[in-house]
């Protein structure tokens, strides 16, 4: 973020209102909002400007309508302005949603900008290839880029002359998000995996390569592999720190020069190089996707890992049960688990069979995402929700229970009750803070005549406490043997009437919500005491001595608990979960890495 740039813009707007800006203070405010509070820079800019204007008793200036003669060059457009421009409509695309009537790109000699016309109150649509004058259009910001909004108040006047327009060619290494023209050769054509997409692949020039996309709705023309094109006014977008260009084939013209030497791109980050490793292929699945040639599980003497062989590694299929030596692989993290990534430049050679020490058993309570070997018994079988799933439910050992999944693969068979199994090389996944084991690829070895005493502490649920119900906090209970009902404020029990010799209790009743299910939850006294470090005696002290009494207790508990994430172990009674144990959740940075990979993993 460029603090200085924002400060300058704010000061200019203040000066326009005859306010003398305090640069240091503005800069400090930006840092506070952006660095400390994670506010996006544009929101910070708006907030600070409004706050300072308010201090001086002034209003936010209304967006200015520039005088008609005042034509702004496209390169100078800045978000928030009302402008008049003259430009050529260089491409139009089908609207992405019914609310939008048209999208496209308009250019003049200085540069180009994307435009959008909303369906509601839309003026006439623009025609590709024509020059026009747009009065009172609004420069908006869309996904971090300036975008021109043509609305019902915009006047569109066609200009009936074709003015010269020469786009400036940007080399691929110099691309940045926005609109750019380039010259490049199509070097790879990938399979299309989105129904709105017409074509995708890789285009390159002497400086590097970039992913390209062609959406449906424009010209049906396909770009030919190995052909060099001049591409005018393509939209450059940033994703995962990588750029991609969206191309309209109508703006591409093939060039004669096919001798363009393309520089290939650098490999991805967030992985570290591995020394030579030797391991046995435990399981392998081929041709997973266009980009992935194979994936599976490999066991080394130090442990077992998931592996991915990328298509660009150009490696022949591996055989299950064989030993291989791998050089040039990398270790990455995928969904919280270590994973060996075998890509371009890696080498794999078969080596002779050797003994593999039996993998150590991991108790259920100690499992973490990755590969593990477990000794368990079927605890509960759940109704299958899909044909692809053979069986799911809970398995357990002496240390706890865990959800398992068995997909309907060839050779897979259901777990039987009252049988102890050793499962070698199961995949441990994490989802919503809960672990599960996938037994589909694992080798199952039933034991005869043995049993395990499964520990059943209840289930672990993670979620946000989105609601605290009335009747929470410090309550009075009826002291009659076996009654224990909560008394009214007047110490009245519905059965035993007035009970001045009540007993105090501390509890929270509320809703724990994981985004999928909202569960009724009860935190009994011992759980509340350890979670809030507030004993019943302390709560009683507050209730009896503070002016707000019992309301003060619930106020304090609410302030500290509502809207917070908790990890709770609970037993279920009908629709109520009663907590045995609860702790505040803290951010898990391995989850952060795994999610980053998930959000960007597709682009490898």
């Amino acid at each position: 973020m460029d603090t200085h740039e924002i400060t300058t813009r704010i000061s200019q707007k203040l000066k326009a209102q005859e306010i003398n800006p305090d640069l240091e203070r503005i800069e400090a405010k930006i840092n506070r909002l952006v660095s400390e509070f994670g506010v996006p820079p544009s929101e910070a800019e708006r907030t600070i400007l409004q706050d300072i204007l308010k201090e001086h008793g002034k209003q936010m200036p209304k967006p200015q309508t520039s005088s008609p003669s005042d034509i702004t060059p496209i390169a100078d457009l800045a978000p928030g302005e009302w402008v008049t421009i003259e430009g050529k409509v260089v491409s139009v695309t089908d609207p992405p949603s019914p609310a939008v009537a048209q999208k496209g790109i308009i250019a003049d000699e200085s540069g180009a900008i994307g435009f959008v016309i909303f369906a509601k109150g839309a003026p006439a649509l623009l025609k590709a290839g024509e020059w026009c004058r747009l009065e009172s259009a609004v420069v908006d910001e869309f996904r971090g880029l300036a975008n021109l909004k043509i609305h019902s108040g915009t006047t569109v006047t066609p200009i009936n002359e074709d003015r010269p327009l020469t786009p400036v060619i940007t080399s691929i290494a110099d691309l940045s998000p926005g609109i750019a023209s380039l010259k490049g050769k199509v070097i790879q054509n990938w399979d299309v995996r989105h129904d709105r997409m017409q074509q995708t692949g890789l285009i390159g020039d002497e400086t590097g390569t970039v992913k390209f996309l062609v959406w449906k709705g424009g010209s049906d023309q396909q770009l030919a592999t190995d052909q060099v094109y001049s591409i005018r006014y393509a939209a450059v977008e940033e994703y995962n720190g990588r750029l991609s260009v969206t191309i309209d084939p109508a703006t591409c013209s093939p060039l004669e020069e096919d001798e363009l030497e393309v520089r290939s791109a650098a490999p991805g980050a967030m992985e570290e190089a591995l020394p030579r490793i030797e391991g046995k292929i435990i399981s392998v699945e081929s041709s997973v996707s266009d980009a992935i040639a194979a994936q599976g599980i490999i066991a080394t003497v130090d442990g077992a890992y998931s592996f991915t062989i990328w298509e660009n590694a150009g490696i022949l299929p591996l055989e299950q049960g064989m030993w291989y030596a791998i050089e040039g692989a990398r270790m990455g993290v995928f969904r919280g688990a270590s994973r060996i990534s075998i890509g371009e430049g890696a080498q794999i050679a078969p080596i002779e069979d050797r003994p593999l020490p039996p993998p150590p058993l991991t108790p259920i309570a100690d499992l973490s995402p990755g590969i593990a070997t477990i000794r368990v018994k079927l605890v509960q079988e759940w109704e299958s929700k899909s044909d692809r799933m053979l069986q799911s439910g809970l398995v357990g050992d002496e240390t706890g229970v865990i959800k398992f999944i068995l997909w309907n693969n060839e050779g897979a068979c259901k777990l039987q009750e009252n049988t102890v199994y050793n499962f070698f090389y199961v995949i441990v996944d994490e989802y919503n803070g809960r672990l599960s084991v996938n037994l589909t690829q694992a080798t199952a070895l039933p034991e005869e005549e043995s049993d395990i005493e499964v520990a059943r502490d209840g289930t672990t649920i993670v979620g946000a406490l989105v609601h605290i119900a009335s009747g929470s906090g410090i309550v009075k209970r009826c002291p009659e043997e076996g009654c224990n009902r909560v008394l009214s404020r007047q110490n009245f029990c519905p059965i035993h009437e007035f009970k001045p010799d009540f007993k105090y209790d501390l509890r929270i009743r509320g809703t724990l919500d994981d985004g999928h299910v909202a569960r009724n939850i009860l935190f009994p006294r011992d759980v509340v005491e350890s979670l809030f470090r507030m004993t019943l005696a302390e709560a009683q002290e507050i209730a009896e001595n503070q002016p707000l009494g019992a309301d003060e207790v619930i106020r304090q508990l609410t302030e500290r608990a509502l809207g917070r994430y908790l990890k709770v172990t609970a037993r279920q009674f009908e629709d109520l979960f009663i907590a045995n144990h609860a702790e505040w959740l803290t951010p898990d940075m391995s989850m952060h890495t795994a999610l980053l990979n998930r959000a960007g993993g597709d682009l490898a």
Partner: protein
Amino acid sequence: MTQPRIQSYIREPAKRVFAAELRDARYSFREGDDEKSPTYILLPTGERSNRIFIVGSLTQKEKRGEQHSMYLARVADPTGTFFVSAGSYQPEAMQQIAKLESPAFVAVVGKPNAYETPDGNVLISVRAETVTAVDREMRDLWVLDCAEATLDRIDAFEKSPDAEAARREYNPNLESYKKMVYDALTAIRQ
């Protein structure tokens, strides 16, 4: 100790959604003809939402009206801004907003509502049920949770019962929502 309870209704879960995705939402619908049936906002990633949970930074608040006063607040997450309101029907949420000094991290549970602006745009605002001051750690947790929930929705798009409506109303570019998630996650990296 547990008395028999009657489950009169199933509480709507609070969906996790980033500001940039909610900003793209504009379609609302009601399940059933009953006056009391809930209204849902359709998220572009293909799931309905009747309630949402957000954690972000309160950047501004404004009191409107004297007799039936209400508070309007802006809450920013790494992807954009939520418009939050609390009126006399949500006294606790309103008092919380009144007490808070901006900037502050807040957790908000509320109902999303669609409004049409004079220039024909549809704006989604969140009518707060509860507002609490939280810390940065909770904000980070929420970004992780919301990122996972959004990616899960994207991955399960084809299987969602609301996918057809989402495709018809938004024709969403799911890749761009993945990018939004990526950018949000990058923003919380220390």
